[in-house]
């Protein structure tokens, strides 16, 4: 009888070591690994590795997609995420990060950039420019064209004449709307 109680007690004690498979012998993303010398389970590809997407990416980078409203919408979304902190929502370069001391980026509405064209913006996003880092790892090639398209739209929005607006839009503008 005593022995049975003892066995039960030990079984209970063993349960305390049981974490319900909370930690399983597999790696979460970014988990440490003793398998590799640098301690990373998430190893970077060996030098010379060609990405499976390399060709599609290169093609996407070369070919400017046709201008559509979907492209502009995508461009606006990506611009708001990756560009707005420095370039601000309208593209004048008065973002919150330059306000904290980061070198102020040039305005998209300067004469030089207004003539630059979308391929230039794509190349700057891809390779960086001045103190601006490359965004190639964060913005997919197709998205770079989308952002470039949105920058063109921003440029146009800041230099549009009243004649380009419809009567209804002009009325809205006169009322002080945006």
């Amino acid at each position, binding site marked *: 009888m005593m022995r049975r109680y003892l066995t039960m007690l030990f079984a209970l004690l063993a349960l305390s070591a049981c974490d319900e498979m909370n930690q399983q012998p597999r790696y979460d993303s*970014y988990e440490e690994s003793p398998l590799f010398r640098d301690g990373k389970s998430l190893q970077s590809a060996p030098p010379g590795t060609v990405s499976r997407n390399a060709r599609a990416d290169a093609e996407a980078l070369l070919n400017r997609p046709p201008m559509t409203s979907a492209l502009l919408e995508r461009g606006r979304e990506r611009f708001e995420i990756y560009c707005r902190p420095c370039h601000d929502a309208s593209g004048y370069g008065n973002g919150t990060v330059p306000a904290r001391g980061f070198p102020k980026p040039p305005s998209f509405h300067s004469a030089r950039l207004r003539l630059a064209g979308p391929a230039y913006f794509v190349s700057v996003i891809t390779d960086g420019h001045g103190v601006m880092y490359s965004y190639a790892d*964060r913005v997919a090639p197709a998205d770079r064209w989308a952002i470039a398209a949105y920058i063109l739209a921003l440029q146009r929005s800041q230099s549009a004449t009243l004649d380009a607006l419809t009567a209804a839009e002009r009325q809205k503008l006169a009322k002080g709307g945006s």
Partner: protein
Amino acid sequence: MFQPAQVRLSQKCWNNSEARLLEAEFRVCAGGAFARVRFSSHPHEKEHFRAKGRDVPQIFTASADTRLRAVLALLALMLIAALAFLKYQDSAYATLRDWVRHQPVPFSHEHHVGGLGIDCRYCHTSVEEDASAGLPPTHICMTCHSQLWTSAPMLAPVRQSLAEGNPLEWQRVARVPDYVYFNHSIHIQRGVACVECHGRVDKMPLMKRAKAFQMQFCLDCHRDPAPNLRPPDQVTRMDWSSWKQNSSEHEDYGRLMVKAYGIQPSKLDDCSICHR
């Protein structure tokens, strides 16, 4: 009435093995208790026994009362322990809710998200396509900090990480157990806002777990996803108070989107949705 039973049982006692003897004794006791009740309810019979010079048989040992109290106390203790355990399981201590972990750099989401208005996806780049939201590699930090706070001691580990090519060793804050296969991308694509699970990170100077991440938390939404769906293009928005206040403006939104996405809440709590 009592007598014959006792005689029969005691005979059994003597005739059988030791094990049976114990059993028989127990039965005598049980028979005694039965008989005793009868005696007390029939004074006439009691008189009969007294006259014969026999007392009511003693069926409980002297320690029986103490043992009964001990058992009752143990039961009460077990109940309290069970309640305490349940309470503990939900506590901030056990679920790590609201606990700040020591990090190599005291990164402030309050400053970067709330102050600078940087979108979550600027750093957590894979959240839209991957199961994992993605921790930013050091050079994403350095996109700004190559120019800003370049000699701040607080950021020394970031510069060291960049120089040596070793990743910063962040301590994980929001974690689900290994048997949960959570996928960020589907939640983001369907418009479950970041804030629903991660809380107001724009108000957290140091990162902490906002929700307990217990199964009930997941199930609440999986069984009734409609109220938690938002327009996917605003998924990183932190403050939804105006959405909640003007609920009449979009009372159909969630319901219609559940239909549009083909979400079947009846199947969304299948085990295999989250467990493999």
